[in-house]
């Protein structure tokens, strides 16, 4: 009667979709009865329905990820120190706070979060910013506590953190608005300059009376001057800065062309004859600003990086005074050697040594290890880790910036800052282009000078204008933002195009184990026993917060639950209780053996790193289960594909050597490609060493770090390109250049292919742009360029690049 619940991968999902999150469950498909993948989803479902928000579950687009509440009490949100720092109270007594949320994904999230006022009485308004994952809550402090609001958001799966980047956000908003204003002004001027130009070109074909001609030429001049001194000024300041630093980038030839065209146009307007070029100049400024805006928007997402990381430790600590009373103090201000109290469910605010109590600690934030660790008197605990089960007293050994978490975060910051900027292909070409253009211009000038001085000036300026790298300057940002948009629809969020360019040069692919190659949670791997035992097991585990209990509930969420009485938990052992008059025991082989001395020795041993669980009824062993961290189902195939595409794969794990080697070898890593027992600091060092080995130069091979936890964040920041996998800690996703919302490692294969295709679109764009430039140079040098030709050549070359970028086949949408 043995049933295998899947191979050592995930439990095979055969049944209905979870009513709340849409993930597969093991339950039967029924129309009327809701089925859930986990108890957290059931809680969220009940909460939503109890307040008449059942419409949420009729939306076709929902989370697509199980609710993972932190389960914290959020009592620190109510403390004075917290309120003083983050909450603003306006005149009529309403309080406002900005909270950074985890797990915000889609339109349905907006709907649900902004209906929090219906869920918690006293909340006046909740406004979400989807892009920033930030909600601004206005509430009446006399009617609701902030901790209650926080707990509700947490139960819905959106774990809140205080938002600490207010100043930086305000600065960025100012930059953004300035950029939008520049684009708006340049756009309005460009369209009107074009209208004037159309009149002039039409007038050239027929006859136009000289007065109208002069009018339109002066109007064009009048439009061009403001566009150059206001929105267009950025090109001149940036070109000047480059020249002063004795380098050349794209802005130098652009500024040169703009200046040449405007000077020539102004002279011709005043003299009343010859081409004026003003339409070209205005359109150029507008298009270049749009390109620059797209580029900046992508890069800014990447610079958001560490902001969310700061919200990981609580703002206050509970200090125990000499007389035994407790006192709330800001966590940064706790003095060394002081003793603080940490309640169950709270995040530990400082590094320290346990003085009293014993509990289980979840250290996933530092180690990536999903399993809780037992701590007792004398053990060291770290800031940011979660105290799961019982109250502790901790003597402070480091706080604030000295804590281990803060030091890792500082490393993340430094890694991000020190990272050499990727010199984009287009910029490398631009620096050569300037030299070519200048020598061609000189050649044209001197060749024509012998024949005709006026023609020499005309043709040289025509050459400078027609070689303006307008299309080239647009080629990269446009293709990048089109590719980034397509990637987002495919479930891959790329922050900044330089990541795509780097990824198109395969080098080393460094992977974390727990949570990246594996699922990262305690999963039911095997189950041998009668199916009728399932409701009984669930009855015993119903109230437990132990990961094994959660694992049972996740795997069997649709199985009915029996009723158990006199349930008794033994810490580190198991659970015992009575169901239908039978004595049931469930726990580790040692726990069962201690109760049943007759248990044979052979039955007590179990292989490898899986956690065994034994079930006994009335003193007889009737079933066995084992739990472990299962390898992602698509890991082996994805890694094999990536290796054939030229990536050298490296496994870098914080886990024990034996486990890492077994999983690594099974996934095809060579023995010298596996590095185990690496601390977050060592991981970062390892990756940094690889980056050095990859070398500097203009196009070094890419070192990509793939990880999921805060323990990988420093390594992710140190890599050329950091990649955060689906389901990872929000903090590591924030640090990464690429974040996946798509399950599994298949996304890596898609990313690799997409990056290559994006680069080929860019190369094609650059070839087009150069083609047009070559034609322009040819015509200008032979004196055949006419104003109309120049006016057609410039927008057509830009338009080609725009269309090629738009239709470039880069990322394919996620198969559904």
């Amino acid at each position: 009667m043995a049933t295998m619940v899947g191979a050592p991968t995930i439990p095979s999902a055969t049944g209905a979709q979870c009513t709340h999150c849409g993930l597969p469950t093991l339950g039967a498909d029924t129309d009327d009865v809701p089925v859930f993948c986990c108890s957290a989803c059931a809680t969220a479902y009940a909460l939503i329905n109890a307040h008449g928000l059942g419409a949420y579950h009729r939306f076709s687009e929902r989370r697509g990820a199980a609710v993972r509440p932190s389960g914290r009490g959020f009592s620190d949100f109510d403390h004075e120190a917290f309120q003083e720092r983050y909450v603003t109270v306006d005149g009529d007594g309403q309080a406002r706070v900005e909270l950074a949320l985890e797990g915000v994904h889609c339109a349905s999230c907006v709907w649900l979060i902004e209906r929090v006022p219906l869920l918690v009485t006293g909340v006046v308004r909740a406004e979400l910013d989807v892009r920033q994952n930030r909600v601004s809550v206005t509430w009446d402090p006399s009617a609701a506590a902030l901790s209650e609001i926080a707990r509700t958001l947490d139960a819905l799966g959106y774990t809140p953190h205080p938002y600490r980047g207010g100043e930086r956000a305000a600065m960025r908003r100012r930059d953004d608005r300035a950029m939008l204003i520049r684009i708006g002004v340049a756009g309005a001027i460009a369209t009107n300059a074009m209208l004037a130009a159309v009149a002039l070109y039409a007038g050239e074909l027929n006859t136009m009376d000289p007065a109208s001609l002069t009018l339109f030429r002066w109007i064009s001049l009048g439009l061009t001057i403001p566009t150059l001194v206001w929105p267009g000024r950025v090109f001149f300041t940036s070109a000047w800065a480059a020249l002063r630093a004795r380098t050349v980038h794209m802005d130098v030839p652009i500024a040169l062309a703009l200046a040449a065209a405007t000077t020539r146009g102004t002279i011709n307007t005043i003299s009343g004859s010859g081409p004026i070029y003003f339409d070209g100049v205005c359109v150029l400024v507008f298009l270049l600003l749009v390109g620059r805006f797209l580029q900046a928007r992508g890069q800014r997402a990447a610079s958001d990086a560490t902001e969310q990381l700061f919200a990981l430790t609580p703002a206050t600590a509970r200090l125990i005074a000499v007389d035994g009373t407790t006192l709330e103090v800001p966590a940064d201000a706790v003095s060394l050697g002081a003793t603080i109290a940490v309640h169950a469910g709270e995040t530990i605010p400082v590094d320290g040594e346990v003085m009293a109590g014993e509990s289980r600690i979840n250290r996933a934030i530092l180690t990536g290890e999903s399993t809780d660790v037992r701590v007792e008197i004398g053990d060291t605990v770290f800031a940011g880790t979660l105290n799961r089960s019982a109250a502790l007293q901790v003597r402070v050994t480091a706080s604030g910036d000295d804590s281990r978490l803060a030091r890792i975060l500082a490393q993340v910051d430094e890694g991000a800052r020190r990272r050499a900027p990727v010199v984009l292909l287009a910029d490398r070409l631009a620096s050569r282009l300037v030299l070519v253009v200048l020598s061609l211009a000189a050649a044209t000038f001197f060749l024509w000078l012998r024949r005709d001085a006026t023609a020499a000036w005309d043709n040289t300026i025509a050459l400078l204008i027609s070689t303006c790298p307008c299309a080239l300057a647009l080629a990269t940002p446009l293709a990048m933002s089109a590719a980034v948009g397509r990637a987002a629809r495919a479930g891959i969020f790329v922050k900044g195009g330089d990541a795509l360019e780097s990824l198109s040069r395969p080098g080393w692919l460094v992977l974390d184990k727990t949570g990246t190659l594996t699922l990262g949670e305690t999963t039911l791997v095997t189950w041998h026993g009668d199916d009728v035992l399932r409701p009984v097991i669930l009855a015993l585990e119903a109230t437990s917060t132990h990961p094994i209990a959660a694992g049972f509930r996740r795997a069997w969420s649709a199985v009915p639950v029996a009723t158990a009485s006199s349930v008794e938990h033994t810490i580190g052992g198991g659970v015992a209780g009575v169901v239908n008059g039978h004595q049931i025991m469930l726990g580790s082989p040692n726990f069962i053996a201690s109760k049943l001395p007759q248990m044979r020795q052979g039955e007590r041993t179990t292989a490898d790193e899986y956690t065994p669980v034994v079930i006994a009824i009335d003193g007889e062993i009737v079933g066995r289960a084992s739990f472990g961290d299962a390898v992602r189902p698509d890991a082996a195939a994805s890694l094999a594909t990536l290796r054939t595409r030229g990536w050298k794969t490296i496994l870098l794990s914080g886990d024990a050597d034996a486990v890492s080697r077994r999983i690594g070898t099974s996934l095809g890593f060579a023995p010298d490609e596996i590095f185990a027992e690496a601390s977050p600091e060592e991981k970062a060092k390892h990756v940094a060493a690889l980056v050095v080995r990859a070398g500097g130069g203009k196009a070094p091979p890419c070192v990509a770090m793939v990880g999921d936890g805060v323990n990988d964040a420093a390594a992710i920041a140190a890599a050329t390109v950091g990649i955060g996998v689906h389901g990872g800690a929000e903090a590591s996703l924030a640090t990464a250049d690429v974040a996946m919302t798509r399950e599994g490692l298949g996304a890596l294969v898609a990313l690799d292919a997409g990056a290559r295709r994006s680069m080929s679109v860019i190369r094609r764009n650059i070839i087009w742009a150069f083609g047009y430039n070559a034609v322009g140079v040819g015509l200008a040098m032979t004196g055949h360029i006419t104003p109309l030709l120049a006016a057609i050549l410039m927008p057509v070359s830009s338009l080609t690049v725009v269309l090629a970028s738009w239709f470039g086949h880069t990322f394919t949408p996620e198969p559904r």
Partner: protein
Amino acid sequence: MSVLFIVVPLALVIVGVALAGYLWAVRSGQMDDLETPGLRVLRDDE
């Protein structure tokens, strides 16, 4: 064609008014979050 001397500057004035409206919108923060308001109407109480 002398009408051009009136209507072309008039057109530019109208552009100026539109531009002023745009600048006001940007400065008052209407362009700060272009994503959420769009999603908000999608799910407006069904």
